[in-house]
């Protein structure tokens, strides 16, 4: 556990020393929220939904990039190769990565929440906050696995554009930028099959106090398994190529 903290510390320092990256990854969802989100937040109810949507957009960005691009980078880094010769298990590295992603995802979501409370009429009932934060972070898991999949299956140069493309497409078509009913017909048709849409249904459900539905959870579980299998496959393939 001490080692998890050491890695967490070292990785956080590395990130903070290049503030440009941190500010960009934390601030850009905020910017999107102010420009694209706020016009749709007309009353308290719609403002709550918009704020929740952009909080998801922020979490999505952090987990998908944190895992996707970082893993692709680490695969070609001689420093990572050296770290493998140290007495540390892959599990320890993985746990510190997850903690890191959670920490930053929470930070990015907080920025949206603060902006939402300041500039819109979004207000949650007190008893909604905890379930909201939990489903917000829990729903990020399949996308972390998607990120890992990209990180292991694509070379570094491809990982960045692929991650970017998927990030924006999934966010838009899943209804995180605009409510799904505003999407053009052909996008709306595929929207309900996307993991981001299911993620949205869960979080919106909590925010709006809708009755609990099992379907979006099942969908997301299927996606989690699917991305999980791809991620493990990618990891094995990479291990096989580099560390036979």
């Amino acid at each position, binding site marked *: 556990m*001490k*080692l998890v903290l*050491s*890695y967490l*510390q*070292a990785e956080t*320092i*590395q990130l903070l*020393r*290049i503030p440009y990256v941190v500010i960009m990854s934390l601030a850009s969802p905020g910017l999107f929220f102010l420009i694209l989100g706020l016009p749709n937040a007309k009353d308290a109810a719609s403002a709550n939904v918009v704020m929740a949507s952009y909080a998801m957009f922020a979490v999505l960005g952090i987990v998908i990039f944190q895992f996707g691009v970082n893993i692709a980078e680490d695969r070609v*880094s*001689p*420093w990572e*190769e*050296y770290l*493998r*010769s*140290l*007495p*540390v*298990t892959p599990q320890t590295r993985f746990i510190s990565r997850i903690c890191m992603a959670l920490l930053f995802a929470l930070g990015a979501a907080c920025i949206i929440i603060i902006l939402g409370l300041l500039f819109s009429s979004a207000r949650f009932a007190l008893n909604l906050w905890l379930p909201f934060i939990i489903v917000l972070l829990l729903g990020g898991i399949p996308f972390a696995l998607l990120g890992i999949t990209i990180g292991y299956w694509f070379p570094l140069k491809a990982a960045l554009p692929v991650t970017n493309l998927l990030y924006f497409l999934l966010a838009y078509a899943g209804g995180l930028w605009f409510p799904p009913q505003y999407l053009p017909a052909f996008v709306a048709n595929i929207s309900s099959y996307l993991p981001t849409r299911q993620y949205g249904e869960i979080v919106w459900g909590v925010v709006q106090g809708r009755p609990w539905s099992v379907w979006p959870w099942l969908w997301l579980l299927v996606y989690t398994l699917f991305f999980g299998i791809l991620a493990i496959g990618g990891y094995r393939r990479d291990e096989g190529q580099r*560390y*036979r």
Partner: protein
Amino acid sequence: MTIPMKTQQAMSSRDQEQEQSGPPRPESVVSVQQVYKSFGTIQALQGLSFDVAAGELLALLGPNGSGKTTAISLLLGHRRPDKGIVRLLDQDPRQTAVRRLIGSTPQQTVFPSTLKVREILRLVQAHYPTPYAIQEMLTRFELVDLANRQVGGLSGGQKRKLALALAFIGRPRIIFLDEPTVGLDIEARHVLWREIRTYKASGGTVLLTTHYLEEIEQLASRVVIMHKGQVIGGGSVEAIKARIGLKQLRLVADTLPDAPEITRIEREGDTYTLYTTDADAVVRSLVKQDIHFRNLEISPLSLEKAFLQITGEAK
């Protein structure tokens, strides 16, 4: 000429007794037995076998592509052999527990550029149960003034010193050094040699690969020569020096020079290159034979060339 393995082991244990009057049969802390490893169609290791005894400094010598780095990567647990046995302290090097007892340097000195020297030491230190204090490592490797500098701004030599400090920080029982002095200035090289001697004196075991004959003379208790993924010879440093301590004579002559001391002759037009262990005797012999030679140059053979010589013998 290949020194048979039996002789080689006999020699090594004799060296051991002379050097450190320790136990008569030192335990073998590194063991590589009949190891095969290929990458695609490239056969990197083809039945490699050697042992390193506790407290010994074994130098692994061989031309580029002879499989030294592959051997070290197996010992560090990066890869697993296709066939054969690799053991550190009687354990599989892929086990985390045994890796607490070894130290190594990054293969290429590439560090996360935004971390400071002290922070990198701290991260690596956190992996070991009874490591040295960071301040002590900074002093020993002459990094005190650089402690709070980000690694991205260091010179190549400074990064190398940091890389070497990482091998020692965990108070390991075995240290692996792959070409440790490449890119080091003379002063830093002496710092490293001093550290290796201190470490050896405290009972530590070192496996190092190098291209410098001087480094072997200074440090090694035994040498193993690799070629094409196999051990083709080895023995005490004196024995190896005698074998690779060849001199090279270049001269221009009208007739083919000949002398019993010459081991090999190469010819390019009227320029001859002679290889010998005794340059003086060859010159005397040529003068006695009244061979008209001019532009005589005598130079020691580089280790690289000496390898070619030895590996040529092995064919």
